[in-house]
C-alpha cells in the first residue's frame, strides 16, 4: 500500500452515516440509508467494489486473499495524539482467510486472459428466483444494473464421479432417467403434499407436531427412500450438516424450515418465464450485486470514495461514544453512525488506557467470534464437468465422498456465457463448512480428486502464499499445461484437467450490533438471505424510525423484473 495516490480531501466533513467497506450488507445499508434521505459517505480501502463479496480478475484474487490473511505486520505509529474532545482508537485488519493455496498449471494461457476472469471471492453463491435478494433487487430497482441467467440444473454427486440429476419439479421427475417408477411416484406425492400444505388445503395439512419435529424424521415417516431423502435434504432444502447424525449435526433442520425451503424452491421454479430452473446467477459475477446497491445508493446522493483506508476511530473522551473516523489521508470525518466492514478490528491505544466507558465494550468488540470456517475453492478448467451443460450446481451430501465428511460440499460450475471467464473455460466454485484448516482442505480436495485431473506439482510449498513461488512452480509444469490447453479432454478418465486453483479457508464472523455496528463475512449458505436479514437488522438498529426501502407506488418492480432477469434470447 505504498503507492497509494495522494488522497483528495473530502467535503463535507460531517455525514449522517459513514459506511466502511463495499461488501453486500454494507452496500445494502448505504443504499437504504440514502433512500431514507440520510447523507452517507461510503468508503472502501480497495480499488474495487464488493470487498469480501467482490468478483476479481485472476491476478488480483491471490493478493486480495493474502492481504486479508495476516495480521498487520506492525501497528501503524500513531498518526496523531488524542485531541481534546476525543480519543483515537487505531483500526487494524484481522486475518480472515487462512491456508491459502494457489496452484497454476497453465500460466501462459491464464496470464493472457487474467482480466477476462471475474472470480467470486465468496463463491459458490447463487440466487433462488423467489428469494429475499431477488425480492430486494426488484423492490429497490437494483435490477436495472444487473442481468441474470438461469442455472441449468442441480446434481447430486457421489464418490465415483457420477452426477445424478436432482428432480426438482414435475417435469424433471418425469424426465429423470435414474429414478425408478416407485421413487418418482413417492417424490411427486411428497411435493404435492408440500404444495397442498402450503396452499392451505385442509386434507393434506401437515400437523404442528410434525412441523416441530426434525425434517429428516418427517421424511422417514413419509417412507421416502434414502436417495430421495438425500435429494430433498441436501440438494433442495440445502442442509449444511448431516441430518441423520445428531452427533455432528449443528443445524438440525425442523420440518417447518424444510418445508419453507421447499416452498422457496418451488416458488422459484417458473417464476420468470425465461429462467428454466430455480437458480439464477448474475452476468459478470456475484460482485455485481454489491455494486448494484452502491449505484442505487449513489443515485440517492451517497458519496463514494474507493482506495481510502481508514486508520482510526474517533470516540468521545467522556462518554466513549463514536464520533467519526480518521482516514489514511489524515482527514477526520464525522458522522452520527458508523457501519464497519468485518475486516477491521480496534486496537487499544498503546500506552494509554481507553476512556473508561470503552473498557467494558472493547474487549467484546475485538473478540474473534468462533463460528467455525468455511473452506472455499476456485478451480479453472477448459472442459465442462458435464459435456452438454455449462452452468450447474452439484451437491455432495454429507458422507457421500468419505465417511468422515460431516458437511455438504457444494460446487457451482459457471461458464463463459456468464462473463466470468474467457470463452472455452469454466470456473468451478466449491465450498463446505469446516472446523479447521486441515478438515477444510480435505473436503475441497475430495471433490477435486473426484471430478478433476490434477496435474502433479513439483514444489508442494504452495502453503506459503507467495505468488512468486506459485508461478515458479508453474514454469516446471509447462508440459502439462501445454497438453491441457491443446487437448482438454483427458483420454485416461475423461475428467477435466485442472488449469488453476485457489483453495482457502474463510472465517465466519457474525455481524455485530453494538456501540459500533459491523457487518458479517459471507456465510456458508448458497444464497444471500442471511446477509440481507443482517443488513435489515443493522439498518433498524441505527435508524429505528426509518423504513427499510419504502415501497414507492409509481414503480411496478414485478413487471420490471420479469423482463430483466434473463436476457438469453
Amino acid at each position: 500500500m505504498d503507492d497509494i495516490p495522494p488522497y483528495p480531501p473530502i467535503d463535507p466533513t460531517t455525514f449522517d452515516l459513514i459506511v466502511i467497506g463495499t461488501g453486500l450488507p454494507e452496500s445494502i445499508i448505504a443504499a437504504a440509508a440514502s433512500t431514507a434521505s440520510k447523507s452517507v459517505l461510503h468508503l472502501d480501502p480497495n480499488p474495487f467494489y464488493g470487498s469480501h463479496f467482490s468478483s476479481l480478475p485472476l491476478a488480483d484474487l491471490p493478493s486480495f486473499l493474502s492481504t486479508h490473511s495476516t495480521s498487520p505486520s506492525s501497528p501503524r505509529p500513531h498518526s496523531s495524539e488524542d485531541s481534546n474532545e476525543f480519543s483515537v482508537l487505531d483500526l487494524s485488519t484481522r486475518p480472515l482467510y487462512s491456508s491459502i493455496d494457489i496452484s497454476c498449471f497453465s500460466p501462459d494461457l491464464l496470464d493472457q486472459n487474467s482480466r477476462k476472469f471475474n472470480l467470486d471471492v465468496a463463491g459458490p453463491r447463487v440466487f433462488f428466483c423467489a428469494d429475499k435478494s431477488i425480492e430486494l433487487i426488484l423492490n429497490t430497482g437494483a435490477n436495472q444494473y444487473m442481468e441474470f441467467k438461469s442455472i441449468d440444473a442441480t446434481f447430486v454427486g457421489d464418490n465415483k464421479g457420477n452426477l445424478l440429476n436432482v428432480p426438482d419439479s414435475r417435469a424433471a421427475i418425469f424426465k429423470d432417467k435414474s429414478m425408478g417408477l416407485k421413487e418418482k411416484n413417492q417424490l411427486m406425492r411428497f411435493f404435492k403434499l408440500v404444495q397442498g400444505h402450503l396452499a392451505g388445503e385442509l386434507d393434506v395439512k401437515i400437523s404442528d407436531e410434525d412441523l416441530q419435529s426434525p425434517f429428516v424424521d418427517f421424511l422417514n415417516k413419509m417412507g421416502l427412500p434414502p436417495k430421495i431423502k438425500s435429494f430433498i435434504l441436501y440438494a433442495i432444502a440445502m442442509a449444511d450438516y448431516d441430518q441423520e447424525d445428531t452427533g455432528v449435526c449443528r443445524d438440525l433442520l425442523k420440518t417447518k424450515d424444510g418445508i419453507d425451503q421447499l416452498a422457496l424452491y418451488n416458488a422459484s421454479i417458473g417464476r420468470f418465464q425465461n429462467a428454466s430452473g430455480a437458480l439464477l446467477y448474475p452476468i459478470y459475477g456475484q460482485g455485481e450485486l454489491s455494486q448494484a446497491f452502491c449505484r442505487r445508493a449513489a443515485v440517492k446522493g451517497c458519496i463514494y470514495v474507493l482506495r481510502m483506508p481508514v486508520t482510526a476511530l474517533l470516540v468521545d473522551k467522556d462518554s466513549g461514544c463514536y464520533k467519526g473516523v480518521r482516514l489514511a489521508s489524515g482527514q477526520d470525518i464525522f458522522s452520527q453512525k458508523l457501519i464497519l466492514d468485518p475486516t477491521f478490528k480496534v486496537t487499544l491505544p498503546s500506552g494509554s488506557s481507553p476512556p473508561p466507558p470503552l473498557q467494558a465494550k472493547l474487549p467484546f468488540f475485538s473478540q474473534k467470534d468462533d463460528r467455525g470456517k468455511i473452506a472455499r475453492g476456485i478451480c479453472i478448467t477448459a472442459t465442462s464437468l458435464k459435456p452438454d451443460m455449462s452452468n450447474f450446481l452439484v451437491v455432495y451430501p454429507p458422507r457421500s465422498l468419505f465417511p468422515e465428511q460431516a458437511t455438504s460440499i457444494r460446487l457451482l460450475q459457471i461458464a463463459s456465457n456468464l462473463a466470468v471467464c474467457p470463452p472455452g473455460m469454466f470456473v468451478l466454485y466449491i465450498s463446505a463448512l469446516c472446523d479447521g484448516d486441515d478438515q477444510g482442505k480435505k473436503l475441497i480436495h475430495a471433490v477435486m480428486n473426484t471430478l478433476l485431473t490434477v496435474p502433479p506439482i513439483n514444489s508442494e510449498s504452495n502453503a506459503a502464499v507467495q505468488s512468486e513461488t506459485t508461478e515458479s512452480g508453474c514454469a516446471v509444469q509447462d508440459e502439462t499445461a501445454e497438453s491441457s490447453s491443446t487437448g482438454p479432454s483427458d483420454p485416461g478418465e475423461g475428467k477435466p484437467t485442472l488449469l488453476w486453483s485457489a483453495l482457502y479457508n474463510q472465517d465466519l464472523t457474525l455481524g455485530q450490533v453494538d456501540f459500533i455496528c459491523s457487518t458479517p463475512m459471507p456465510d456458508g449458505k448458497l444464497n444471500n438471505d442471511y446477509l440481507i436479514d443482517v443488513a435489515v437488522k443493522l439498518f433498524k438498529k441505527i435508524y429505528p424510525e426509518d423504513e427499510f426501502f419504502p415501497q414507492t407506488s409509481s414503480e411496478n418492480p414485478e413487471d420490471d423484473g420479469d423482463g430483466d432477469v434473463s436476457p438469453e434470447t
Partner: protein
Amino acid sequence: MHGRPRKAPKPEDEAASTAKAQKLRALQSQFFSFHHDKIYTKEAVELSAKLLEINPESYTAWNYRKLAVEHYLSQPECNPDSVKSVLDDELRVVESALRQNFKSYGAWHHRKWVLSKGHSSINHELRLLDKFQKADSRNFHAWNYRRFVAHLMNRSEHDELKYTEDMIYTNFSNYSAWHNRSVLLSALLEKKAEGFLLKENVLPEEYEFIHQAIFTDPDDQSGWFYNLWLLDQTVTTDSPLLVSTWPTHGSDVLILRDGCQNGSSFSPFTTLHSESGSFPIVLYFNQPVEGVNSSTVTIECGFNKNGYLLWEPLSVSNSQAAQVWVAHLKFPTSELDSSVEVSVGHSKGIISTRGFQYCHPSSFSFNVHVQPVEKDSFQVSVAESILWREENFKVYSAQSEESIPIATFDQLCIKDGHDSTASNWRTEALAKEVECFRELLSLMDCKIGKLTLARLLTAYDAMSFPFANKLVHSEEVLKLYNDLMKLDPTHHRYYKDEHSLVVLQKMTSSKESLLQHCFQYKDSVSSVIANPICLRLNNLSLSRIGAFEKLLWVQMLDLSHNELQSIEGLEAMQLLSCLGLGHNKLRSITALEPLRKLKSLRVLDISYNQIGDHSIDTTRYLCSSPLSHSVGSELNTDETVISDAALVNYWEAFYMFKDLKLNQLDIVGNTIADEKFKSALVKIMPTLKRLDDELLN
C-alpha cells in the same frame, strides 16, 4: 391457458363491449351488402379484413375472402407475383385474426385453404406455430395445423416425433402432444419405417415412456389416454379373427319342422325348431368386419347346390360392418341327414373396419338332421303360454356325454393357425403392465389405476387363455370394479356394466359354471321351443349383458330381475325364441332395438320395466326414426297400418314390433302399457296370441 378463473365483467368492460358490438354491427351490414352484390374491390376486401380482425369467428367473411381470391385468380391480369402477394395478404389477415383468438376454426381453416393453393412459402408456418404452441402448448388447432404443415413440407415423422417428445418433456400434461405421438407412431408403424417394423419393438419403449408420466403424476389424465391407446394397440390384433360360430364345429343339429322333439337321442342344446324352412348360420368375429359374402364364406352341403347364401351384418346401425354375421340356410322339406362345411376367408375380402384383411382361413362342419312333421304335437301346443315362474323350472341334469356348444377356438379348424410369437409379445407386454399397475396401486389408491388394472387383467385372461376358457383373474377384476363403484360413484354405471360383463364371462367360461344356470322348462315341451333348456341369468343384478360368443346356442333366456337398461348386442343370439326381460330398468321401446334382428323370437316378457316413466328417451338417438330413409321405405309398404291414427302416436312401438312375429308378449307394469297402447300392439302384431296373459282372439 388452462384453469384460469373467469372474471366477472366490470362496468367499463360492458360499455366497451357495447361499443364494440355497435361498431361490429355497422361493419357487418356493410360487409353483407358487399357480399350480396359480389363486390370484390379493394375497399370491400379490406372491410372484411377489418371485420375479421374484430370477430375471427365470422365464417361468412372467411368464405367471402375465399370468393374474392378466386375472383382475383380468374382475372386475366393476374400474374404469379401478384397472386403471391394476394395470398400473402390472406395469410396476414389470418395471422391477425389468430392473434385475436388463436382457437378460431375459421381462421385456421382459411390458412389451410390459402396454403393449399401452393403459392405461398411454408417456411414461415413452423415459426408461427412455435409461437402459438408456446402460448398454449395444448392448443389442438395449432397441433392439427402442424400436422397439415408437416405433411405439406414433407417433414419426416421422425422429426415431428422428436418435436412432440420435446413438448411432452416440457410439460407432459398435454393431451394434444400425446395424441400427436399416437398419430405419428401409427403412421410410422403402418409404413413399416426403419425402426418401426414391428409393434413388439416399438410398444415396449412407449410403455416405458408413459409409465414415467403415470407414476410421476397419476392424477394427470392426459397420460392415461395415451396408455389406453397403447393398450388397444397391444390387445387388438391387426387381422380380425373368427371367435365362434353357430352351429359349432362337429355338432349334430336336429331341426324340427313344426313339432317337438320326440324321444330322439340328440342333445337338446343343438335341437331347434324351424317354421321357415331355414336355419341360421352365425359367424362371430373379434371385431367388426366387412365383406362377408358368398365368395368369402363358402358352404358345401348336399342340399344347397349353388352355395349361394345371403350374409347379413347384425348391427343395429345400418353400417355394412358388423362383428356378427348371419345367413339363413334353406333345407329341403323331406327328411334329411347331411353334413355341412363352412369355409371362412379362403378368398380375400373380409376386412376389419381398421382396414386389415382377415388372414386366418378356417372352416367348420356340422351335421344337419331334419325331422319330418308330426301333426299331433303341433295341435296340442298351440295355445300354451310360457310362464317365467320359478316352479316351471327345474335344474337341468346333463347327460354324461353331452357337450354344451360353447364355441371356442379349438373347435374351429384354423388351418393357418396363429403366429404364436406374434401373440407371445402381446401376452408378455400385458403381464408386464399388470405387474406395473399392481405396483402403482401398492403405492397409492388411484381409481384410474384400478380401472386400468381391471382392463389389463381382463385382456390378459382373454389373451393368454383363448383356448382354455379360463378366467384366472376374474375374482380380482370383480373386486376392483366393486372398489371402483364405491370409490367413484359418479361413474358407478360404467363400473357396474363392466362388472356385469365379467360376471357373464366368468359364468360362461366353463361347462360346469354354465350348466349351473341351465334349467329345464316344465316337463312338457312347448311348441315354440324345441329345446327345453332355459339359460337363467336372473337375479344377478346385471346392468349389461355380454359374452354372446358363448351363448349363440341359447333359445330360451331368462334375464329377469336384473338392472338392465340396455340389451345391446343381444341381436347376436339368433336362435332366441323366448326372452324374459321382466323386472329390469329398460326405459323405452327404442331400447329394444336389438330384438328387431331376432327373427325367431316368439315369446317376450318386458313386464315391470320403466318404459314410459321418463319423457326423455335417452336411447332415442341410437335408433332410426320414421323420417330417416331406411325406415321410411319400410313404412310406405304398410300404409294401411300407419294411416291408423292410434298407431301414429306409437310409431316407436310400430317400428320395433311390426317385423317381430311374437306369439306372446308381457308388458304389464310399464307406464306406457295402458289399454290404448295394448290395442295398438295387437294391431301391429297380428301374430300375437297372448298379451299380458290374456288370450287374444
